[in-house]
């Protein structure tokens, strides 16, 4: 089978690229291991809603999401959105097609799949970041009696063994799961490392409205001071709820969630926690204050109803693991590319790229954190990246043709 471009992945990134390719008149296919929006179907807990409000979530060429512009879509609504989007321009999605390998050929690339090979002249990797959970090695040292659940596999509190739960990680996933378990009456301990605290709203507007207006989300990969850090920054401590409430360590602590430092070891049946919690809480408060200062400066006003500093809980450096029935790993996830030439990857197995342009001409990646801009991995942020990379790709096809 021949086509000009193979897009791997039928989520928001692959579909946004497909829309731009369609518009440019470039023939292509979108290979999807399951069906459109597979990760949104199988890897989300039931209560999950987008962190970004509806007004932001516009895909290329698509109308507004509709509904309350300040509301937050649930995962099934996102699936419907992506399904409708794919149909709206007849995206050439090949469902249930798993990529087995991508190889360079004289004429371009050969993409091997479980449905046969595709020959093409450009490849776009749009497989997202959730191939596997990032679980610390010490998980293997926890006793067999302890249920272990990764955030990608978490669905609802009833799935978690009755009793006290240790949630590890305090980005959006960790705080949301800790909050839901606590509201379900569980005793919850939350192990906290580096995190990004932001209020849901400030001065009456959603924090994303402000970040959008300040240009924070449009910061470019080649402008940001420490790109490596920006790319691995934990997700914002946010939850999308109808009442637009803030969810941070202060609110969790007030609700009775026990906060500890990072889980750093297991010894003699005890979980060991880092003594660095105070600094992470302070750093989170300071970083939040800097963002709110920028908003105040932007509107030319003084601080208004600022969230208070996170109270420092009693120091806990170790806990008996026997008191827990389950551990939830909200320690992040990572992509895997066993089907890519290893020389396209760095030592950690991540794709080497410059703003989405990979080391091999004709290969592109999008949908990763800070691919091109801070908004790159947001549903609403992948469109502009797709446009820019599609432009580069079309030029590449033109060059390849004139050289042939």
């Amino acid at each position, binding site marked *: 089978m021949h086509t000009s471009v193979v897009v791997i992945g039928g989520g928001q990134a692959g579909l946004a690229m497909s829309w731009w390719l369609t518009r440019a008149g470039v023939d292509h296919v979108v290979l999807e291991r399951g069906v459109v929006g597979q990760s949104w179907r199988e890897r989300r807990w039931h209560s999950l809603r987008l962190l970004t409000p509806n007004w932001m979530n516009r895909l290329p060429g698509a109308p507004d999401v509709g509904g309350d512009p300040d509301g937050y879509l649930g995962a099934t609504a996102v699936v419907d959105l992506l399904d409708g989007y794919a149909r709206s321009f007849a995206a050439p999605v090949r469902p249930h097609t798993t990529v087995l390998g991508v190889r360079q050929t004289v004429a371009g690339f050969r993409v091997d799949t479980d449905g046969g090979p595709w020959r093409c002249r450009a490849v776009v990797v749009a497989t997202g970041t959730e191939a596997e959970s990032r679980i610390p090695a010490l998980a293997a040292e926890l006793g067999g009696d302890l249920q272990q659940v990764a955030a990608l596999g978490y669905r609802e509190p009833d799935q978690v063994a009755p009793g006290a739960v240790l949630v590890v990680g305090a980005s959006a996933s960790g705080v949301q799961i800790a909050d839901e378990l606590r509201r379900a009456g569980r005793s919850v301990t939350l192990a906290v490392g*580096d995190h990004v605290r932001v209020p849901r709203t400030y001065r009456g507007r959603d924090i994303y409205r402000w970040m959008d207006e300040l*240009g924070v989300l449009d*910061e*470019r990969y080649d*402008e940001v001071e420490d790109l490596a850090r920006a790319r691995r920054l934990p997700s914002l401590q946010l939850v999308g709820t109808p009442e637009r409430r803030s969810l941070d360590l202060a609110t969790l602590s007030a609700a009775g969630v026990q906060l500890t*430092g*990072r889980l*750093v*070891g297991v*010894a003699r049946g005890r979980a*060991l926690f*880092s*003594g*660095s919690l105070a*600094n992470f809480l*302070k*750093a989170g408060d*300071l*970083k939040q*204050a*800097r963002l709110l*200062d920028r908003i105040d400066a932007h509107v030319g006003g003084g601080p208004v109803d600022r969230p208070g500093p996170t109270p420092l809980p009693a*120091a806990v450096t170790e806990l008996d693991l026997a008191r827990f029935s389950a551990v939830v790993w909200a320690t992040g996830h990572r992509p895997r590319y066993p089907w890519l030439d290893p020389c396209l990857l760095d*030592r950690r197995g991540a794709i080497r790229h410059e703003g989405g342009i990979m080391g091999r001409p004709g290969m592109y990646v999008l949908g990763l954190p800070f691919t091109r801009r801070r908004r790159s991995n947001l549903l609403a942020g992948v469109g502009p990246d797709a446009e820019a990379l599609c432009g580069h790709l079309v030029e590449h096809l033109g060059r390849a043709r004139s050289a042939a």
Partner: protein
Amino acid sequence: MSTVESPVVDNGVNVEALLGARQALAEAPEAAQFRWRARCEWVNGTHSRTTIHDFSGLGAEHTHKSSSVIEGDHPEVFASEDHGPTPTETVLAALAGCLTAGIAAVATNRGIQLRSVSAVVEADHDIRGILGADPDVRNGFDGVRVRYEIDADASRADVEALVAQSQKRSAVFDILTNPTAVTVEVA
């Protein structure tokens, strides 16, 4: 985005060299492997003398410009002769030294001129642990507190952020707050 020109500051830290090293070592992880060394001799009683002279790193052996000697002893209230600080106090010195170096480096990188930096480090220690008087009391500290007084061309929030970032990048802070595997053997 507008570019804000950082004011020229001089805290005596060669930040360009540090940033250059970071970039170079990211690509050469072998060269980033250092080994620190201290050599200790028992003198008498609880008094010992530790000399610090050489270390390895960047694929080579190195020596300090001069050797340093750290006496270790216990005070008279411990029925010792007090020839020097207790090793626990030396740990506090290490923490303060590490955090303060970090503050100077981060300040320079952020364009903050320091005028004075001082710190008091205190550790709470229930010595029933080391005396074996109560098996429920640990040998080490219950907690450590560091209090900085910093005079700098920066807002209070910026100074606090400086101190926070210094902790995030401090070796001794990490050593004290996280477990480290230690093996002790007899040659």
